[in-house]
């Protein structure tokens, strides 16, 4: 009975998109449009050293000659890159020194979003629950990072990217762009030129990060793009778990979010990276507005026995173009990808992963659950490759798609490239609709159709939800329910 009443309770909480508000906060912008001057403006605004400016300008030059990729199963009108702001920041005279100095208006916004920026608080409000250090990124800048002192005591560096460029230039210069090269692809290159902020994490050798690290991204300003850059380095034998969440206001225009995330994992280290993506998906009926989420995420398992695990719950955005990848370079390194992608209304998602096996005895595992409803399109696109030196490479991939309604699409596009005789790859995929029998059974027990669908969908995605840290799993389960609202009946 408890499960039923809980489900009923969740249904009661359903709202269509509760993060869609706009906050009226004083902000400053870069002049509209993109040119070398915009790049200089951003760099100067952040007080960057010359090497960083040169790096950005070089990226901008390369971006000018790159072409926007068109192979994904998504459709959108041409983007006018000149009709957008590339820098928007809440006005402050100087960066806040402590939490007490953060603009109370900003704190109020984060409180409304349910993000704890006060250090004593915990996400679920449960005593004894794990604590979270948060880096809050508002449009183009990081407004605050919590628990910095406590983390510094064990040698963990957790700060905004701007601060890392100032305080830890040797680490940034060594690793920035080493996983996702400047001209890796059109959007990553654009990000390299105009990225404004993001999180930087360094875990020293042998340290297990004492708390969960998280970044919360919020787009607020109109006609602006968000280009954050995250770099996480787990030195030998280190471990960290990192979470990111994102929301944006409801607007009729499309806004671009082109982020780059780079993970470097050395010998015996491990990074667990979880994402709950809930950008504004656009109007469910007309398809107007919403975020274009064009993101490059890549992990480089540089060391032997390194491990990376990507877990993503993708429910928002008008268009998602995202392939968190694992370069398995170190011997016996391990890559994992667990994904739930839900599309409803007019959303389009083309998402998946790449497992690139370069080292001997590398292993990877892909579990992808796609759910399409409304008039949406949901594509899994993933690459598994083994190079000649990747002796004994192993991969297991499972892609399941669920269709709810007659007007949506569910597509599975795996690429398999095996270049040596000892690699062993297995892939299986299914596409079905919700079983009538199961629905009938559950409804016969007294659940409404909507509740029944939720229960079955939660069962369908359970394998992936289990991989999320506990508090996130609860949030994600609710999000799954909200995303599918109105998809039946």
């Amino acid at each position: 009975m408890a499960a039923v009443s809980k489900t009923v309770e969740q249904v009661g909480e359903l709202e269509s998109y509760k993060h869609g508000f706009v906050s009226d906060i004083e902000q400053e912008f870069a002049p509209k449009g993109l040119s070398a001057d915009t790049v200089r403006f951003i760099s100067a605004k952040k007080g960057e050293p010359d090497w960083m400016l040169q790096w950005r300008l070089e990226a901008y030059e390369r971006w000018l000659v790159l072409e926007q990729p068109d192979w994904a199963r998504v459709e959108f009108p041409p983007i006018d890159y000149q009709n957008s702001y590339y820098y928007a920041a809440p006005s402050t005279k100087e960066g806040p020194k402590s939490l007490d100095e953060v603009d109370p208006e900003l704190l109020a916004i984060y409180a409304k979003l349910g993000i704890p920026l006060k250090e004593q608080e915990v996400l679920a409000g449960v005593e004894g629950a794990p604590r979270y250090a948060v880096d809050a990124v508002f449009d183009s800048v990081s407004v605050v990072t919590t628990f910095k002192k406590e983390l510094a005591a064990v040698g963990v560096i957790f700060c905004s990217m701007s601060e890392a460029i100032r305080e830890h230039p040797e680490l940034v210069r060594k690793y920035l762009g080493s996983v996702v090269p400047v001209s890796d692809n059109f959007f990553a290159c654009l990000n390299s030129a105009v990225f404004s902020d993001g999180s930087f994490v360094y875990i020293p050798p042998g340290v297990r990060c004492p708390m969960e690290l998280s970044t919360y991204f919020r787009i607020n300003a109109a006609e602006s793009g968000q280009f954050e850059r995250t770099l996480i380095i787990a030195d030998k034998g280190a471990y960290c778990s990192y979470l990111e969440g994102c929301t944006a206001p409801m607007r009729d225009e499309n806004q671009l979010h082109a982020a780059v995330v780079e993970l470097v994992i050395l010998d015996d280290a491990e990074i667990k990276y979880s994402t709950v993506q809930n950008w504004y998906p656009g109007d469910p009926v007309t398809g107007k507005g919403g975020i274009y989420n064009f993101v490059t995420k890549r992990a480089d398992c540089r060391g032997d026995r390194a491990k990376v695990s990507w877990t993503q719950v993708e429910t928002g955005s008008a268009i998602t173009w995202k392939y968190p990848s694992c370069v398995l370079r170190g011997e016996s390194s391990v890559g994992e990808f667990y994904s739930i992608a839900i599309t409803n209304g007019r959303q389009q998602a083309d998402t998946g992963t790449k497992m690139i096996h370069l080292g001997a005895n590398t292993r990877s595992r892909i579990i992808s659950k796609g759910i399409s409803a409304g008039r949406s399109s949901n594509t899994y696109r993933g690459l598994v490759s083994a190079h000649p030196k990747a002796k004994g490479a192993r991969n297991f991939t499972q892609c399941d798609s669920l269709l709810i309604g007659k007007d949506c699409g569910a597509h599975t596009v795996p690429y398999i490239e095996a270049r040596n005789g000892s690699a062993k790859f297995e892939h299986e995929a299914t596409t079905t609709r919700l079983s009538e029998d199961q629905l009938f059974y559950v409804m016969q027990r007294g659940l409404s159709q909507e509740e029944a669908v939720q229960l079955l969908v939660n069962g369908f995605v359970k394998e992936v939800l289990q991989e999320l840290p506990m508090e996130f799993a609860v949030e994600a389960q609710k999000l799954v329910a909200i995303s599918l609202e109105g998809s039946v009946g």
Partner: protein
Amino acid sequence: MSLATAIKLGDPTQLPSRRDEDWRWTDLRGLIRQIPPSAEWAEVGEGGPFAAIEAEEFVVSNGHIEGWNAVVSEGPADIARLRVVATEASSNPATVFVTVRAGTSLLLLETYEALADGALTNVALEVEVQAGGRLERVVLAADGPDSVTVSTAKVALGEGAIFAQTVLTSGARRQRLETQVAHPGAFASVRMDGAYLLADKRHADITTVVTHQGVDGTTEQLVKGVVNDQARGVFQGRIVVAHGADRTDARMGHHALILSDKAEVDAKPELLINADDVACAHGNTVGALDEEAIFYARQRGIPEAEARAMLTLAFVEEVIDRIGHDGAREIARAWAHRQLGASDGL
């Protein structure tokens, strides 16, 4: 970008390259620097690989066809041999029409015999299987090691039609055997099997597209590959279910054995589904022979080489066993034995 345009214009820049999504593993642009000239019809002896089966013979020789370029079935058990032959280092474009009239049945035995080095063959097949018709297409591509062949068959099916094909190939320098089926649903059924058995530096690409356009259609597909030495096998299978094509049941399987550390297998089994009342699935595996099975066989007194050959043959024969026509099936089986026997270590 297509081979047909490139041959027509004599312009190699029109060739598909790895930048074209559908040709990423079968790069012609990077291989062919110059489009060879055309050649005259050359006489070849009757028969070919399916000589043992009595049939009407159609020959495409160096891109030329004597007489009609159409195969039309009239009766309940027609058999036709279509042989594509190249005897010179020439460009050989050709189009052939195949019509299976309503209620009739045809066994099409299609062979590719481009034995000349540097031959560039491009065949377009326009196939129509009318309502209630039945077509079994058995393709045996036995090209020479230095020829390039592209064959594209477009198949349109009528209500209740039955289409079954088995594409068998030993590869070429570059070779693409593509089949596109427009599936009307309507209780029509499709079987799209294939096997590539490759050695040396050969390449073969089996590409298929089945588009389910109406309700109540079935498709089953089993493609297997064995690659040795520095060979490269490519499988691209796409099943499309159009909006409203409910109760489609489509299953695809691709399984490959890599027997050498320099061989390569690339696969892209796609499902593009736009209707919800469907059951679609695909499975894909790539790997080496099961060492435990070899150990088991050796323990029973079977020498290792023999055990490997036995397991490899058993792996491939699953495809060959599904060929409907007895004679064609046994010719295919003998071909597979020869093909695998010729590889190192077998």
